[in-house]
């Protein structure tokens, strides 16, 4: 089978800059290379909307940069549509496009339509075709009123809609979306997600690789998700299967009075597989999301909380979510919250 994207033992490290390295060597200190990706093996089928889920610094953007030919791998291979990114970058470039969250591409002096047209020219799209495609997407993303506005006058949300169109206007075979809803408000983030999902339904032969740290975004949009942390892929499956891996009756949300200590009150309990704390200072409460090793372990958890003086204010058993699957694999929650910007 020809994969849309395939990585084999992909590794990427970053070295200190030569002058700093020399200086450090001179003073006798050695700084090891920073490992951004370690033995990453990922395969994405044509037609898939594939998610890379991980916290900031997990290696998601590094992987996208390698796949989009902006970075070279330190070791291993990365193939896009069967083409090696290191050996034939031009071949890869003809097949891909990329949109990043918080992107400020283009020139403030051009209008939205002109910006989209300009970028389409870099992919050789004939002007008539580019304008037709752009108009259709502008309408679908409710950008018509701003279409002839200079991009310097656009709001963040409008700008990101334009960026999305910029990425799609070349009709790429494989599209990389790097945190495309980052910093967007609820409504616009939903519009963007709906647009991407519809596009891939209408173009079943196309592939989208989406990185996100919004759990619910990955859950609702992606056919399969790879959970990545500290440069390693910890799991890769459909969101449903990732959640199914958790035993039933094992996920609880417990509310206790504000817990100010850095160490969780459930620290080092053999029955607890992982726990994420979320402080709600305004309410004077802390939410503990607990994943148990086995059913029936909840009694010992409440005992421990009582002993530590963390009175249980409320306790809810939860259906395992993708966040729980993530917590289960990584051992900690994402730094940015679950379901932000209306990902649910």
């Amino acid at each position, binding site marked *: 089978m020809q994969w849309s994207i395939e990585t084999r033992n992909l590794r990427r490290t*970053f*070295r200190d*800059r030569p002058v700093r390295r020399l200086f450090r060597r001179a003073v006798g200190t050695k700084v090891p290379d920073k490992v951004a990706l370690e033995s990453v093996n990922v395969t994405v089928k044509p037609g898939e909307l594939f998610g890379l889920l991980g916290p900031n610094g997990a290696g998601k953007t590094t992987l996208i*940069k390698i796949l*989009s*030919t*902006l*970075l*070279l791998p330190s070791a291993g291979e990365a193939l896009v549509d069967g083409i090696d990114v290191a050996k034939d970058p*031009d071949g890869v*470039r*003809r097949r*891909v*496009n*990329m949109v*990043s969250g918080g*992107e*400020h*591409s*283009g*020139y403030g*002096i*051009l209008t939205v339509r*002109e910006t989209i*047209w*300009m*970028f*389409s*020219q*870099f*992919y*050789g*799209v004939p002007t008539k075709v580019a304008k037709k495609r752009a108009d259709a997407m502008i309408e679908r993303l409710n950008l018509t009123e701003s279409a002839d506005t200079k991009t310097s006058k656009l709001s963040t949300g409008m700008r990101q809609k334009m960026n999305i169109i*910029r990425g799609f206007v070349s009709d790429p075979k494989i599209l990389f979306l790097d945190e495309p809803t980052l910093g967007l408000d609820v409504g616009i983030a939903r519009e963007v997600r709906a647009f991407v999902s519809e596009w891939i339904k209408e173009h079943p032969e196309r592939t989208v690789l989406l990185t996100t740290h919004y759990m619910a975004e990955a859950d609702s949009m992606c056919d399969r998700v790879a959970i990545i942390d500290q440069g390693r892929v910890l799991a890769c499956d459909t969101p449903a299967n990732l959640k199914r891996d958790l035993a039933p009756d094992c996920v609880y949300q417990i509310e206790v009075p504000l817990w100010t200590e850095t160490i969780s009150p459930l620290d080092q309990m053999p029955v607890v597989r992982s726990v994420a704390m979320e402080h709600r200072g305004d309410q004077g409460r802390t939410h503990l999301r607990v994943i148990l090793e086995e059913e029936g372990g909840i009694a010992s958890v409440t005992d421990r909380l009582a002993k530590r003086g963390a009175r249980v204010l409320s306790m809810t058993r939860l259906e395992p979510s993708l966040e729980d699957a993530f917590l289960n694999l990584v051992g900690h929650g994402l730094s940015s919250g679950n379901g932000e910007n209306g990902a649910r």
Partner: protein
Amino acid sequence: MRTNLTTNLRAIWGRAYVRVVGANREPSWLFFEVALPLLASFSFALIYRGMGAPEQYVGFVVVSGAMIAFWQNILWSMAAQFYWEKEMGNLELYLIAPISRMSILMGMAVGGLFMTAIRATLILLIGTWVFGVTYQVSSWLLLTGVFVLTMGAVYGLGMLSSSLFMLFGREAWHTANLFQEPVYFATGFYFPVRALGDLGAMLASAIPLTLGLDAIRQLIFSGTPVNPLFTVKTEMLLLVVATILFNWAALRALRFMENLGKQSGRLTLKGQ
């Protein structure tokens, strides 16, 4: 092959469009870009007048004022532009596009030439009118040829410099700043470059603008002594060599720097 060519031609036009539109949408740019360089040219012209220098010196200065516009466009609006593109996030979008980096630079050059040509023409017209400069063009054909070759060589040099900006960003910016005044001096913008002495003038001719300016002066002030560096034909030959050399070197340097940047991870690193 044909698709590649079409895509690259479209890319050139796409990138040039920004400059062409920019010239029309921000008329204030035109005012500042004409008025400020004129001040420098006027200063030198007044000095030459004041000290009773031969009248063609005033003409040299006016022509140089126009040519400086092109030089600044190359250095600041093309070579250094890669630094700004990197900061703005455009560079990575250019780099993932299936086009030659030269096409992007060519687009900047073509668009910049359009914008700068208007600016240079205005400088030339105003300067000529204010100081009553008279020209005696010996050959329009040769003049056009020299101008085209000079542009080919200096834009090649600009593309070569852009490879440094692409990778080193702000560091290259400082270096370019450092070289600005010495380049103005060595190209003989405001005086015949022969005044630097034979050796000095030879060394200065490594900058193609020096040769171009010298040849243009010979061609448009043909009735007056201009103390040339070489004959027009020799200078044209050297400009052909420079055009080929700088453009070839730019192509190689862009590839090399891009590869280096992809290895080190600095290619898309902002704020450096």
